[in-house]
Structure formats: structure tokens, C-alpha cells
């Protein structure tokens, strides 16, 4: 338990990169990038967790309760927004790429070489 969350984050990262490397479809590759990014959320929140802590939201909890780290949660929020926007932008590129190249297979893209 002491290192499991960290190792899971590492696994998600590597499996996502594996998908990117072996992908035969650019849409799938963009999805894999999203998977890769989720490793950063897991690691961030795992780092900020405290046993027995509760969310640092004091609307329905006393202000002296033991809380988990709020900073990593704010960072993870920012990170999620970044991920969604990057995904949107890359998918927009894939849509146009399909029109101009007639394919979404990275193996068939041959305009830029050497």
C-alpha cells in the first residue's frame, strides 16, 4: 500500500506511451495521450493524500479537521483543463489531416522525411 499508488501512476504512464508508440490510428494515439496524462493526476493526488484526512472544504466540516493537501488538488484541476484542451486541439489537427492526407494511419504519412 505504501507505494502502490505511485507504481500505478507509473504503469499508466508507460502503458499510455506504449499505445502511442504502437498506434496505427492517430485518433487512438490522441486517446493514448489522454491516458498518459491521467498518470499525472493519479500521482499528484496520491502525493497529497493523508491517512484519515478529509477534503479541505470547510462548508460541512470543522475548520480544525485533519485535511489532505489542497495544493495538489488545485494543480490537478489545472492539469485536467490542460489535458482536455490539448486533446481538442490535436483532434482538430487529426480531422484536417484526414482530409488532406486521406488517412489517419501514422505509417502512411510520408510528407516529412529526412
Amino acid at each position, binding site marked *: 500500500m505504501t507505494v502502490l499508488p505511485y*507504481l500505478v501512476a507509473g504503469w499508466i504512464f508507460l502503458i499510455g506511451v506504449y499505445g502511442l508508440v504502437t498506434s496505427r490510428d492517430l485518433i487512438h494515439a490522441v486517446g493514448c495521450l489522454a491516458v498518459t496524462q491521467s498518470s499525472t493526476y493519479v500521482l499528484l493526488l496520491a502525493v497529497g493524500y493523508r491517512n484519515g484526512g478529509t477534503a479541505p472544504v470547510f462548508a460541512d466540516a470543522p475548520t480544525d479537521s485533519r485535511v489532505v493537501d489542497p*495544493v495538489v*488538488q488545485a494543480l490537478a484541476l489545472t492539469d485536467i*483543463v490542460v489535458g482536455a484542451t490539448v486533446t481538442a486541439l490535436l483532434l482538430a489537427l487529426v480531422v484536417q489531416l484526414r482530409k488532406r492526407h486521406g488517412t489517419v494511419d501514422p505509417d502512411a504519412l510520408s510528407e516529412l522525411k529526412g
Partner: protein
Amino acid sequence: MSPRVRLWVFLVGAAGFAALFAAACLDLPAFGTVPHPYGVRAVHAALSHHTANVIASVNFDLRAFDTLGEESILFSAVIGTVVLLRQARDEHRKDPEPATVHPPVRRFALLTLPFALLVGLYVIAHGQISPGGGFQGGVVAATALHLLYIAADYRALERVRPLTLYEIGEAAGEAAYVITGLAAVLAGSAFLANVLPFGTLATLSSGGTAMVLNAAVGLEVTSGIVVLLARFLDQAVEIEEPGEGGGSPRDTRDSGGNGDDERERA
């Protein structure tokens, strides 16, 4: 490289990465044990500004500058997507065929729509008190609007979705964020300083500028996501490539990329 070589390069790299990462994990403090000085300071700072949701306080007060960057990322991604998914010179539009929707689905979607919008607004408005905030609520509200696409069809969605307005709304949200920051400078304080009265802990009007910034983000995210999804829907449903069969071209000379304007004027 051949797929096989590529895989080997990856495997060698992955082995190195895994070793490095595992070594780091073993040196990390055990899961759930160590408090961080920054986190502790943040909790105190949030309470000193009467913001019940410390995460909202970190996002919109302590590290509001990060959120400015984050909103700018969203902002520029939306402009970027609008530009990238514009109608190219050699494409034309086709009216999508009207869809027939099963009555229970239509009723459910139409009933859920106002409710989902309300949930979105609720999540935005309570950002500084309970979990949620401008970003989360904005996405919910923007997604909710697309229930119309399910309930009826794309044309119905287009009719209630004046895209120009949403594009301006997005820019207005971004501008409001920056101007709130600049107002603090004009008031003689630091950029993005919390110069408004803090209010009472855990009420709707608590948190000072955090509340204003939260609203600005809500506006920007709602409009931004609507524009983003509209661009993808446009591509998927309306824009036709040259040589694509079916349907009658509506206007082959239209090259601007936004059919809504024409429709509004028509």
C-alpha cells in the same frame, strides 16, 4: 524505423524509465503520511480570506496566476480549434437530415436539459463553498446544452446556440479575469490581489475576488466548451469535403467557416 525496431527502442527506454521511476517511488514518503508545508500554509491562507473551499482559494486567490495561465490555455485552444476547423476553401456545407427521436428519449432529454443547466449553474455558483467551481460547472452546463442534439437534431441545437455570442462570451470571460487582476493594481495592490471584502465563511458571497474570478472562469469555460463542441459537430455533421456524395450543397462559395451567421441573417 520498422515497427519492430521502434518497439525495441521503446522497450529499452521504458525499462530505463521504469527503473528510474521505481527507484524514486521507493524514496518517496509512504503513501498518506507526510503533510506538506505549502499545503498547511494554503489552508491557513484560505481561512484568513474566509474561503471555505481551500481548493477554490488556491485556484482563484493564492495561485490565481496559474489559473490565468490555465484559462489562457483554454482560450487559445478554442481559438486554435476554431481556426483549424474552419471551412476550407474547397469545402461546402450540407444541411443535416432531420432526425426522428423516440418520444421517451425526447421527453427525458427535454426535461433534463433545464435541470442540467441548473446543476451547472449551481456548481459554478457554489465554487468557493462546496466542491465545484467555474470550470466544473461550466463544462456541465456546456454539455447539458447538447442534450438538445439528442432530444431533437442538430438544427434545433443551432437555433438556440448563437455561436458569435458564445465566442464573445469566451473572450469576455478571459478579459474579465485579466481586468479583475488589473483593478487590484489600480487599487494600489499587487496584480490579482484580493482587494474585495471577504464576506462570511461558507456563504455565497464569501471569498472576495475569488468569487469574481470564479464567475469569469465559469463564463469562459461554458462559452469555450460550447464553441469547441460546435466546431467538432460542424465538421462531423455539416461540412462536406469535395467529392463527398449525398445531399445537396447549400452554398459552395461560402468560405468563412461559420454557417450560423448566415442562418441568423436568413
